[in-house]
């Protein structure tokens, strides 16, 4: 077992623990919205657990999983982790921050939800803990880049191994995104929560939050794409259809991920319509790399089917390994993203956005995208990673085989019902769909359908946790299978334009400045009064 593998196991272990806890909270929330009574149901507990669910799923599960995956890819494709002590230090820092922030949430002192919009004020440890998690991830990014640079010195002129190309691109997006978060958290929220200044400007904080909030989505999605491009075709028995296009896709994400945040602020005052329109253009442009991905990945699977003997137009689908939990997870994740992607296009058109802004539709939307496309890919990847990391055979393979289908089925009901209820006007983030007690009839049985879907999701989540835990502690010991990555149909032999990630980062910074400098300056130049803190929880 190499150091990279031990690091990866530690990170993925934290990710799964966060996922398990957050799943339990999720199923309770679904029931609460549908007004199903259960012991200890209360407003306080609902909003507290909603905060915990969001933070643990969207920030802890994802970030730790991605860091763990990064170490695997660096170890396996570059043969090294440069700076292992630093890597363990980063892990400790991120874990300490997570535990600190989670403790203040569970103690009921930080019920501000995972968007933590001021002037709602959390306990200072909540903000400091979140900052430490991010600083830990920054150091992880540094270790990854150092590993790559050390490899590059030994391999002048060679193209970056594709999995690392995607991972380094992800890290660049993460640095660009978290720059905005750092301004908000370190520059505004931490000193304000410590009482160093009495007031805060909610609009300025919110603008920096969404500078971070949308590229965060690509920070989750890009590692999933890395797995789709570089592992899925291998599992399916095929070849990667086009290596250079995969690199182009990652570069487009580096360029376009961040200058898009205003599409979350269409309903906000204080930002000009022209700037919102500009961010709309970039938001639509970022659909493009996903369209390209859909073709390349599906073409790679067709190659797999044909190599195995398929000859007709569509019979290659039947030759694919639908019982392999990694394969089925990713395929279902891709189907979900077809709907999620077009849903995103609807959200990004501001005329339609005003119909769905902050309604249950949005909740439905990100449970299809983050909650299925990304989360299901990561769960599926766990089935691929665990035997290779732990040297143990997957325990309860039957549970693993049905778990992805169960998740997808549960999500159809959960997300479908909330999409429709959102169009009818059901707001998101509410303890009870009856609202003031008078509104239950407006949404009919939709919240109940969503709650039923939530229970199926919970069952699926528990299958996943049982398989993961079972494998870790009681899987039959085997010689770890090798980590093998997809071979392209036409391998890239030399370093090319798409490998010049330093250059592309500079272009990305220029685009961010163009998209944000003027509107932020304009906001700051206005007479602003600021808000005192509130803790209504």
């Amino acid at each position, binding site marked *: 077992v190499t150091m990279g593998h031990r690091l990866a196991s530690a990170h993925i272990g934290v990710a799964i623990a966060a996922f398990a806890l957050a799943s339990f909270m999720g199923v309770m929330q679904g029931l609460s919205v549908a007004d199903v009574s259960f012991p200890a149901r209360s407003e306080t507990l609902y*909003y507290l657990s909603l905060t915990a669910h969001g933070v643990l799923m969207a920030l802890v599960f994802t970030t730790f999983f991605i860091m763990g995956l990064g170490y695997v890819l660096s170890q396996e494709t570059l043969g090294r982790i440069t700076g292992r002590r630093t890597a363990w230090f980063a892990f400790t820092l991120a874990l300490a921050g997570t535990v600190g922030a989670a403790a203040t949430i569970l103690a009921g002192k930080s019920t501000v939800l995972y968007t933590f919009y001021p002037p709602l004020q959390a306990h200072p440890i909540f903000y400091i803990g979140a900052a430490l998690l991010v600083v830990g991830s920054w150091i992880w990014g540094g270790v990854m880049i150092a590993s790559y640079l050390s490899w590059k010195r030994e391999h002048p002129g060679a193209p970056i191994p594709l999995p690392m190309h995607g991972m380094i691109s992800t890290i660049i997006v993460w640095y660009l995104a978290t720059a905005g978060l750092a301004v908000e958290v370190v520059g505004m929220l931490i000193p304000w929560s410590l009482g160093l200044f009495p007031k805060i400007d909610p609009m300025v904080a919110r603008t920096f939050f969404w500078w971070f909030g949308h590229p965060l989505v690509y920070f989750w999605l890009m590692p999933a794409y890395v797995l789709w491009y570089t592992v899925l075709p291998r599992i399916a028995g095929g070849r990667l259809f086009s290596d250079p296009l995969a690199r182009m896709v990652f570069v487009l994400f580096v360029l376009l991920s961040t200058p898009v945040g205003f599409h979350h602020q269409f*309903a906000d*005052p204080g930002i000009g319509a022209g700037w919102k329109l500009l961010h709309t253009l970039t938001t639509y442009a970022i659909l493009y790399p996903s*369209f390209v991905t859909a073709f390349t990945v599906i073409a790679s699977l067709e190659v797999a089917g044909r190599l195995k003997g398929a000859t007709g137009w569509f019979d290659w689908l039947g030759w694919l390994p639908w019982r392999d939990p990694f394969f089925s997870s990713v395929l279902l994740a891709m189907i979900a993203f077809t709907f999620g992607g077009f849903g995103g296009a609807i959200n990004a*058109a501001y005329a339609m956005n005003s119909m769905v802004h902050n309604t249950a539709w949005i909740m439905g939307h990100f449970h299809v995208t983050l909650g299925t496309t990304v989360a299901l890919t990561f769960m599926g990847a766990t089935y691929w990673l665990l035997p290779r990391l732990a040297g143990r055979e997957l325990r309860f393979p039957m549970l693993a085989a049905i778990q992805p289908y169960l998740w997808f089925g549960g999500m159809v009901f959960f997300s479908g019902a909330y999409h429709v209820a959102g169009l009818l006007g059901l707001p998101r983030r509410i*303890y009870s769909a009856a609202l*003031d007690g*008078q509104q239950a009839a407006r949404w009919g049985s939709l919240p109940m359908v969503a709650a039923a879907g939530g229970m199926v999701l919970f069952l699926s989540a528990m299958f996943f946790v049982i398989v993961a835990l079972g494998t870790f502690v009681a899987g039959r010991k085997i010689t770890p299978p090798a980590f093998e990555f997809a071979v392209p149909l036409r391998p890239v032999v030399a370093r090319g334009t798409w490998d010049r990630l330093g250059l592309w980062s500079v272009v990305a910074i220029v685009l961010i400045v163009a998209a944000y400098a003027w509107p932020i300056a304009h906001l700051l130049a206005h007479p602003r009064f600021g808000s005192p803190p509130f803790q209504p929880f």
Partner: protein
Amino acid sequence: MQVEIYERIWMWAAAGLIALFLGAILLGAGLHAVQPPSHIETLDPTTLAGHPEFGHPSVTTREDGSIVVSVRAEMFSFAPDPIEVPANRPITFRLTSADVLHGFEVAGTNANAMAIPGYVSQFTVTFPRAGEYPIVCNEYCGGLHHYMVGHLTVKEPTP
């Protein structure tokens, strides 16, 4: 870069689809002035009680006949409540918050904006159908967030 012919066709088709989406948005913005709220106006959220407009927010008809509804959102209610407006007339909402962030959403319509302390959100909508609509707060604002429901009555205009 060598790209297969089918993939090339797909890439152009994808670009075309995106251009189509964007064209629809640009056309709406340019020809029909379909634009998101972009009003920039600030005020002190801590002194709203004495504010000439938001101290006692109400529905007013301006000299040119246009209808303006000023709304103050606060934990956990909207003022004024109920609000009564005529159908088929442009209604301009002016919205601010006395404390934390709130949402202002007339359920089932596209009247939907953020109430942000220190800022005035302004947008104009027309309600084509008379009826009773709940106004729901759609941004989490504290433990009784779900209780924050206002009432909008849209009346057929009296001739």
